[in-house]
């Protein structure tokens, strides 16, 4: 009887909080991450009744809830949902909202709010979360009348998932949760002030195709737009027909098979040598679903100035925001790529491609080989990632935190399947990996999920081990421990004369902590134990914790220092 009511046309009288549950079920939501509290108790009371239909995961902190919802969304392409109470519950979502906003994650957060007569009175656990979250949400709204719940939640899901996705926060006062009203749910399919996908202009496609066909040294940089638009097949077809070398941004990683012959690696601050240098050599730069973040471009005044820039993008506000486009092809990249295909000539660029190979060989000799097969005693982060590749057959979902290990993970992790690299790109949120990996594991239950964190970020959300234990989430957790906030230490070494201000960490016994949560755990300090430990981790059913003690003062290279040009990519 409960879930049947969602799709019926006849009106029945229910409470606002029950309506919330029906709305979620009607939107196909089966998992919610959250944390209860006073102002959202009526909704939790309904969750109790709907346990069969709607699985609630009790996290250990609201930040954990929203990151889990993000991880779920990133691997499944569905909307992730998080619940929190008013006041501190709601403010604890803020970091996750900002993260989801900058990385375009479809997330709907529902917060409880004090009863409407108390609004603005500094009531217990009252905070203006709508005001606070405005700049970090795609849309937000406060509900004070239960009659608005169905239409506002329908809008929330539509806005979160359509066009360029993003987070939506809906704040519901406690009296609206209790209020009885006649429930009827209609999905939202359009909003007059909101055009999620711009109309494709065929003239732009022709113009772009002409430039592509006459290019001598073209290069593709693709971003998360490919993943968000489910355009992986179109990307592959476009690359293979046009013969153009393709590089990726951190968030575009896994949209194209790592071993694809035209995959030339990562662009950006710690990207690969060849695509960074050749960005300033190419004659046509084709940007697909990416936004020219400063970590990608380095100094804008010396970025791809020689190239004609073709920008394929769904969000018109991104056009000419950072890099001036010679041709802006607006639309969903899945559609624009498939429509441009017939206009593209089949080509190959052997000489141009050889340039990528030549520069790769330099990077391989100077950076990659020493990282992957180190001759020094201490373990490197790269060899750990490489071992995970081997053990998982490039099939794992890798969820990384923020810092050096993140860059090593993005540089060295290999992927066969799309939507497999989950990381906090735009905001750089330390503490993201552990909770996001929980969501990822639940969003892709048939795939192995490996969370990779540093000793710093891991301790920012370490309490989520409790959630992993209680909910039995099969996450493999790898902490690459260098007893430093490694990335900051690297900058201190390079730019602050080795003044290591507050970057050294004195850490607890991580294995004991994991074991305290009944999670099997191991610590590796020697190279000869690494392979077997990773094998054991991947072969273990359920969650597993592995601490790998790595070289303390390793640096991530290549590196484009802030303010430098992509041409000034350093190998050491």
């Amino acid at each position, binding site marked *: 009887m409960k879930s049947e009511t969602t799709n019926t046309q006849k009106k029945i009288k229910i409470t606002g909080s029950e309506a919330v549950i029906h709305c979620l079920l009607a939107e196909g939501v089966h998992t919610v991450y959250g944390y209860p509290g006073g102002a959202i108790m009526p909704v939790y009371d309904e969750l109790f009744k709907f346990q069969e239909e709607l699985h609630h995961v009790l996290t250990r902190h609201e930040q954990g809830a929203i990151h889990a919802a993000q991880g779920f969304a990133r691997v499944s392409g569905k909307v992730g949902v998080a619940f929190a109470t008013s006041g501190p519950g709601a403010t604890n979502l803020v970091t996750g909202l900002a993260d989801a906003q900058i990385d375009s994650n479809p997330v709907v957060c529902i917060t409880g709010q004090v009863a409407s007569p108390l609004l603005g009175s500094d009531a217990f656990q009252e905070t203006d979360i*709508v*005001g606070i979250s*405005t*700049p970090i949400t*795609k*849309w*937000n*709204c*406060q509900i004070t009348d239960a009659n608005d719940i169905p239409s506002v939640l329908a809008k929330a899901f539509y*806005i979160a998932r359509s066009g360029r996705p993003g987070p939506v926060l809906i704040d519901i006062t406690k009296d609206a949760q209790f209020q009885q009203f006649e429930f009827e749910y209609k999905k939202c399919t*359009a*909003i*007059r*002030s*909101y055009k999620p996908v711009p109309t494709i202009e065929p003239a732009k496609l022709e113009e772009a195709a002409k430039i592509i066909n006459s290019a001598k040294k073209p290069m593709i940089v693709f971003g998360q737009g490919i993943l968000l638009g489910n355009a992986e097949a179109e990307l592959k077809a476009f690359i293979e027909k046009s013969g153009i070398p393709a590089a990726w941004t951190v968030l575009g990683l896994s949209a194209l098979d790592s071993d694809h012959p035209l995959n030339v690696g990562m662009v950006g601050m710690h990207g690969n040598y060849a695509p960074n240098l050749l960005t300033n050599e190419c004659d046509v730069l084709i940007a697909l679903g990416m936004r020219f973040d400063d970590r990608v471009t380095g100094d804008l005044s010396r970025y791809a100035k020689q190239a004609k820039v073709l920008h394929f993008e769904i*969000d*018109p*506000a991104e*056009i*000419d*925001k950072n890099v001036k486009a010679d041709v802006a092809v607006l639309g969903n990249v899945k559609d624009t790529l498939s429509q441009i295909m017939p206009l593209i000539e089949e080509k190959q660029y052997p000489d141009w491609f050889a340039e990528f190979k030549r520069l790769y060989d330099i990077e391989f000799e100077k950076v990659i080989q020493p990282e992957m097969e180190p001759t020094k005693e201490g373990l490197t982060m790269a060899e750990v990632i490489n071992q995970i590749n081997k053990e998982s057959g490039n099939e794992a979902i890798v969820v990384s935190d923020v810092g050096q290990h993140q860059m090593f993970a993005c540089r060295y992790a290999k992927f066969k399947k799309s939507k497999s690299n989950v990381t906090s790109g735009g905001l750089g949120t330390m503490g993201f990996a552990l909770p996001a990996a929980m969501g990822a594991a639940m969003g892709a239950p048939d795939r192995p999920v490996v969370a990779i964190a540093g000793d710093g970020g891991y301790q920012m959300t370490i309490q989520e081990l409790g959630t992993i234990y209680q909910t039995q989430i099969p996450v493999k957790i790898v902490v690459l421990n260098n007893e430093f906030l490694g990335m900051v230490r690297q900058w201190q070494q390079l730019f602050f004369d080795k003044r290591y201000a507050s970057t050294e960490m004195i850490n607890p016994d991580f294995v004991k902590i994991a074991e305290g949560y009944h999670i099997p755990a191991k610590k590796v300090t020697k190279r000869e134990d690494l392979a077997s430990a990773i094998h054991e981790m991947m072969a273990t059913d359920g969650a597993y914790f592995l601490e790998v003690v790595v070289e303390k003062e390793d640096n991530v290279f290549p590196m484009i220092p802030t303010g430098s040009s992509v041409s000034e990519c350093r190998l050491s």
Partner: protein
Amino acid sequence: MEEKFYTITVYTENSVGLLNRVSGIFLKRHINIESINASVSEIQGVHKYVVLVKTTEDWVRKITGQLEKQVEVIKAFYHTDDEIIYQESALFKIKSDLLFDERQIQNIIKDSNSQIVTVSRNFFVIAKTGRRHEIEELYDELEPYGIMQFVRSGRISVSKESMEISNILKEFQEN
């Protein structure tokens, strides 16, 4: 690039908190709002913000893009001063006895094309609509006599070219 005055016109839905979202776009880029006016528009149920800023064309174009991206913003436009007809309004509250004692005030009112809105025993109110400098001139002339209260509105404007907002809404209804 040269900084100039730009008038941004934002057509929006009429919802709680939207002003916060709109002003946040300016805050994010650290741009001071010289004046802002919110009102109904020529279309029923559609609101209109007129925001005056001093910035470069590059920035005003980016800000307009960011504004338009907001879910409840229907469309945003920006114009230079020569592309629009614009006015501001001001009210001056002045002691009533001056109206009778200072003959010059009557001349100022006449010459400045302003109107007397109300006269009471204690004070009278002059309204003046015009360009910023006209209002400032009137202010300077009245100031020596003592202004009890003064207020000036934000800029309001209409563009010389049409702003195709009705078409956008019509197109939506047809689809």
